[in-house]
């Protein structure tokens, strides 16, 4: 064989010459490999979506990366995963691309770097939030109020007027919603998703079901392969506890808001009342879930992890855990003199959670759900010819 031929021998074929990052170039190479293999096509949504394409420009790779649920199955099932010289590690490379994509879509763009230093950023935001609230409480009333015992309806608001709380949280949530919405817009444009997809109700409903059940975190039916090639559904279970726990807590807050404005009932509510029940059940889920996810992360096969973003993952899990922990402690301690400080700490943590939402792991759920909408839409178009 001529030497020229050897010179062109390359392990990195890929389909498109230029990519924004090395991870995207590697993802292109892998998708080209996978597209000529296709053994994994039954495992999740990524491979069927890949098969609808021949070439993989950055936008498509970002879409595929956000479709991936990181179940690990295709790593253990792949005959070419490392140490094979083809070095096919789809979960890890897609994780990198996915994590990079969050920074790519962030608003304001100047904060893109935050994702890389997310652990530190969250810690600072949380410290800031908690400090601000404690100072705020103390400033509002004297120290005696902060450390006094308050019970009965309106007890919380003796420390900080309800309207002030609403204004603060209204502002920070509005900010989070705007920032996330702008991120969504950037994502949708980048992956060049058709406008029709986002108004296709059947696809949206399909995506809601797929996201709600974490359909693609099941390794193609047996469970995700996190620690080794033996599947287990633990991660999915913990994620469900986390997600639905979060939603219950959200529902608790929403009901409380309705109680306040529609029924004129002021917090704190008795333990058997709806906001407390929802918050307690959700809070317990939000304790066990993140703890389990953290443990799973600990046990994860190192070769599957995007080690550069471990901080971001851990920070988000920790924030959820703290939100729940402080909330439950507040419930337990609300009739004691510790209530004032506990309330301040809880609100501070929640404030920080909201503030950091657009800049951390929280966005994974949003982009993944949107990717699922697009996928459902693509599938529908395909099956209709």
């Amino acid at each position, binding site marked *: 064989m001529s030497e020229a031929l050897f010179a062109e021998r*390359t392990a990195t074929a890929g*389909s498109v010459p230029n990519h924004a990052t090395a991870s995207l170039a590697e993802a292109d190479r892998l998708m080209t490999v996978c597209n000529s293999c296709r053994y994994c096509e039954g495992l999740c949504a990524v491979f069927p979506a890949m098969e609808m394409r021949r070439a993989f420009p950055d936008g498509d790779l970002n879409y595929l990366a956000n479709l991936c649920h990181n179940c690990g199955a295709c790593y253990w099932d792949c005959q070419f995963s490392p140490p094979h010289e083809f070095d096919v590690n789809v979960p890890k490379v897609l994780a990198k691309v996915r994590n990079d994509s969050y920074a790519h879509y962030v608003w304001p763009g100047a904060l893109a770097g935050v994702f890389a230093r997310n652990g530190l950023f969250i810690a600072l935001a949380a410290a800031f939030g908690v400090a601000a609230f404690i100072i705020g409480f103390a400033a509002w009333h004297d120290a005696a109020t902060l450390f006094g015992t308050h019970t009965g309806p309106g007890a919380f608001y003796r420390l900080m007027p309800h309207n002030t709380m609403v204004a603060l949280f209204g502002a920070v949530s509005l900010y989070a919603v705007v920032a996330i919405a702008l991120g969504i817009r950037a994502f949708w444009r980048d992956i060049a998703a058709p406008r029709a997809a986002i108004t296709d109700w059947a696809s949206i409903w399909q995506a809601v079901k797929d996201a709600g059940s974490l359909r693609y975190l099941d390794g193609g039916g047996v469970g995700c392969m996190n620690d080794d090639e033996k599947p287990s559904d633990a991660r999915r279970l913990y994620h469900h506890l986390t997600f639905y726990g979060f939603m219950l807590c959200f529902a608790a807050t929403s009901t409380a808001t309705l109680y306040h404005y529609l029924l004129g009932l002021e917090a704190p509510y008795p333990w058997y009342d709806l906001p407390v029940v929802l918050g307690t059940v959700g809070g317990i889920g939000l304790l066990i879930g993140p703890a389990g996810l953290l443990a799973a992360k600990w046990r994860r096969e190192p070769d599957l992890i995007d080690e550069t973003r471990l901080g971001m993952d851990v920070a988000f899990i920790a924030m959820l855990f703290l939100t729940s922990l402080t909330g439950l402690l507040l419930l337990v301690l609300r009739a004691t003199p510790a209530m004032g400080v506990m309330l301040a700490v809880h609100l501070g943590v929640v404030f920080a959670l909201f503030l950091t939402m657009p800049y951390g792991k929280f966005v994974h759920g949003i982009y993944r759900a949107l990717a699922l909408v697009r996928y459902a839409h693509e599938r529908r178009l395909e099956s209709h010819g």
Partner: protein
Amino acid sequence: MPSDETSYDVLVIGGGNAALCAAISARREGARVLVLEASDAFWRGGNTRHTRNMRCAHDAATESLSGPYTEEEFFEDLMRVTKGRTDQDLARHMIRESKTMLTWIEEQGVRWQPSLGGTLSLGRTNSFFLGGGRAMLNALYRTAETLGVEIRYEAEVTALEIADGMFLSATVNGETLRAKALVAAAGGFESNIEWLKRYWGEAAENFLIRGTRNNKGTILRLLLDAGVQEVGDPTQCHAVAIDARAPKYDGGIITRLDCVVFGIVVNKHAQRFYDEGEDIWPKRYAIWGRLVAAQPDQIAYIIFDASSLKLFMPSLFPPISASTIEGLAEKLGLEPAALRETVDGFNAAVQPGTFDDKVLDDCRTDGLDPPKTHWARRIEEAPFYAYPVRPGITFTYLGTRVNEEAQILMADGRPSANMFAAGEIMAGNVLGEGYAAGIGMTIGGVFGRIAGREAARTARGNRAQGTIAAKEATDV
């Protein structure tokens, strides 16, 4: 873990589909089973880790199969691809047993991919493993371990002690291991270039091995030397044309090139040597390994132009490209004028027709030798492309003769007292030549299950003697 060295009932050599099916089946019969696999845990299961499907007869459509595939049809297919070179009784027996394999393999934790999802148009005859062969193997290993099968990696067997057709012990890393029965499931000899050279000469140096580097035929050699009856033609094997840039071993499925029908194939003298459009590709892809093996330096080049590039999926390596035929020849190390002449001659011979890559169309050459009888289109639209190809050996057919109980037969025709074989190592009983997709796994699965069961019964002293009684005992 058994410390007494004689405490194993069944020793299984190998770690692929045949070995694991045998180990599981022996264990389910109550035997104490030890599996010896030459490779480490990552590379375990040699060629099996590269597979994607299995061919089993079935009377009705299932979730993973689009329609019935009767025993008779399976048998006819086998007779057609082997041109009748098969042990017909044994083949019929295998096909009959393949029916229950579909559910048996599922019971061992392997999952099938639902029909239609498959990329090959074989959804009716072949079942695809969800996640491919390595996923399938992982499931078998999981099940074997759960059942209590002992598995040793990096345990290459280098010697066998056999006396008068009776297996006594095996040597692994200097250690002697005894067992009451043996299942040989250690693959063919495709990765043993020296052995291949005995039949192919120096040409074998240029062969690429599509699968494992560990199937060196050591066990096959040891058995044959111990008086076991040989079966099959040593030059027969499954071989396809694969990208010449593929690694020597384990390039797997993704180095296969499916674009022969879209262009012309030339040798190192830039000469065509076979009708590229003889038949639809799935029916012809397995002849191109041999065709290229017969060319000088065992190298050939598939040449096509821009109009064909999008007609097939890109493969692992990009095609080599140039804006002129001469430029392409230079990059390939071919004589530019010679390639020009071949392409011009081909172009001039192309007759008008309606191109359709889905059927045997009417695009052909006239007055060309060899002709291209379908899908012949002029190669004229720049850029021009080429894939260099070499013979890629999948697996060899030479093996040990067995009977319906997977029992190894000795040279004098008597069955060995306690030796059984399954998989590639006995594929030649069924495959005299040719191949039907998915049959490699059928041979391993069916005979692996039988071998394991019979070895366990032999070891535990309750194996029914004689074929009639043994047949009654074949239900599981």
